[in-house]
């Protein structure tokens, strides 16, 4: 466990010493801020319109701003996550530092967990930046905080899954660009897989729908913790990290 933390600290150091972390945080704040502004503007305009027409249709900050923004953040971060994971192992392989890790008396799983945890912490920092937007809602309005917290839990789980997949792909190549591109492709597919089931009810469509992360994230965004969705993400994370471990081990036999 101590070794995991050592690796994690080192990875966080690398992220925050280089511009990677700061760039990602800035982008996360900027893009989520834009989406927040669009949603908020629509919400306010709608409110004014209704007042002018004299209607008192109930408006809900949670449903009209928080849920759609969380969904948006989920998609936006698809683009950023590969940037976090692509260097994890590819860089070590290219620069030869993997030899240092592999010849130190530590377990592979400690290396993997340390790196994954560091990536997750950076991702959580990015989420915090998006949360700044919601601070305004609490300042000027009175939204329900519980669905918001659940939404962030969902984002964290979903990020953990994508980061585990990204870590696995990063062990397969020395080239960071390849690692990043493939990770992005796979994460995107996992996101849109649900579309395959839109007009079909065959078994494969059900499977696609189950594998798609939208299906599982939607409930979190609406503020519902469903056990089956939590289990989906946790097994996904476990499988991703397991594949990473296998791949790391096989490197030695293949190279």
């Amino acid at each position, binding site marked *: 466990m*101590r*070794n995991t933390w*050592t*690796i994690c600290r*080192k990875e966080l*150091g*690398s992220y925050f*010493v*280089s511009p990677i972390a700061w760039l990602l945080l800035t982008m996360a704040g900027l893009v989520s801020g834009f989406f927040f502004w669009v949603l908020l503007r629509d919400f306010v305009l709608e409110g004014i319109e209704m007042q002018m027409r004299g209607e008192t249709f109930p408006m809900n900050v949670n449903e009209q701003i928080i849920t759609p923004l969380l969904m948006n953040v989920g998609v936006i971060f698809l683009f950023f996550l590969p940037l976090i994971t692509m260097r994890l192992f590819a860089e070590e392989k290219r*620069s*030869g*530092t*993997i*030899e*240092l*890790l*592999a*010849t*130190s*008396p*530590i377990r592979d799983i400690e290396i993997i967990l340390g790196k994954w945890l560091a990536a997750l912490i950076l991702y959580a920092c990015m989420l915090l930046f998006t949360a700044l937007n919601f601070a305004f809602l609490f300042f000027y309005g009175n939204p329900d905080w519980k669905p918001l917290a659940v939404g962030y839990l969902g984002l964290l789980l979903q990020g953990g899954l994508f980061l585990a997949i990204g870590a696995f792909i990063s062990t397969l190549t020395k080239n960071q660009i390849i690692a990043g591109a493939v990770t992005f492709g796979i994460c995107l597919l996992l996101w849109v897989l649900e579309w395959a089931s839109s007009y079909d009810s065959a078994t494969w469509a059900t499977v696609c729908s189950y594998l798609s992360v939208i299906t599982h994230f939607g409930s979190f965004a609406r503020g519902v913790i469903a056990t089956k969705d939590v289990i989906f993400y946790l097994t996904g994370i476990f499988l991703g990290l397991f594949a990473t471990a296998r791949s790391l081990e096989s490197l*030695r*036999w293949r*190279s």
Partner: protein
Amino acid sequence: MIAVKDLSKRYARTTAVDRISFSVEKGEIVGFLGPNGAGKTTTMRVLTCFLPPSAGTATVAGFDVLEQPREVKKRIGYLPESPPLYPEMETIEYLRFVGKLKGLSGADLAKRVDYVLGRCFIADVKTKLLGKLSKGYRQRVGLAQAIIHNPEVLILDEPTAGLDPKQINETRDLIRSLAGDHTIILSTHILPEVEQTCEQVIIINKGKLVATDSVRNLQARTRGVESVQVEVAARDGAADPGAVQRKLEQVPGVAQVLCKDPQGHRLIFEVQSQKGQMVRGDLARAIVQSGWDLNELRAAGMSLEEIFLELTGKESAADAGTAAKQDLEPVSQPEASSEPKG
């Protein structure tokens, strides 16, 4: 300390290491010599548990690299061909990180970091980013990370590659100074390095063991004659090279005298002894008694370069590697592999 037996490593299409066996005793410095692509790095990677062997066994301090890799890794310090540095880390931060990976902590860690900073002469760059260091410093930081946990065995892959002559000398001195506390295997394709640094030499070529012996024996055995270089000077500055040469030839046991610098002003001769004769004392006496000054007298030996070319040449020319091995009575044999496993 290290015992390798019938070790082979095959990649998909090539055999990098082919049934080599050798052993290294505690406290020795062993030079691992071979041309590029001979299998040096592969062998070292097997010893450090980075690669698993395809066949055969390798044990370090009694622990098998396949069975108990963690125990082996605890006892090994490894400097790969290019030092495994993270360019975005500071020297001291990096050494702390490696120290923790190797299992150090607390006061122990701080003490060892301080120690290696001093020992490897890198204290002046301890807060610099590794990516900004010069090649020489990078190499020394690499060496520092290898010895940080005070390992019993040090494995250094071409520690002087790419350095300038001054840095090469500094690095060699550093390695020699580490010899007492550690068993060292160092690979190189530079022959004088082995002559200057190592006691034992293991020569491999194309994945096969060509010879293992002490450097001195190797030089002696290939010819069995002593080769001495002498520099003579006359106090009045007018010694006749011919006269000196004749005088040297009269010394008992001398087979041949060559003038190394016929036109120049320095009187340098290479003297070959007859087989089994030690002539250095007699040579010195003869020169001094003749009224000349003896400026230099050193054993020239046969350079490892020649030995190496001879050995590997035979190997490739007639595939008579075994013949060469028998000539040399090589390969310190398996007694060492019976070290207890624990």
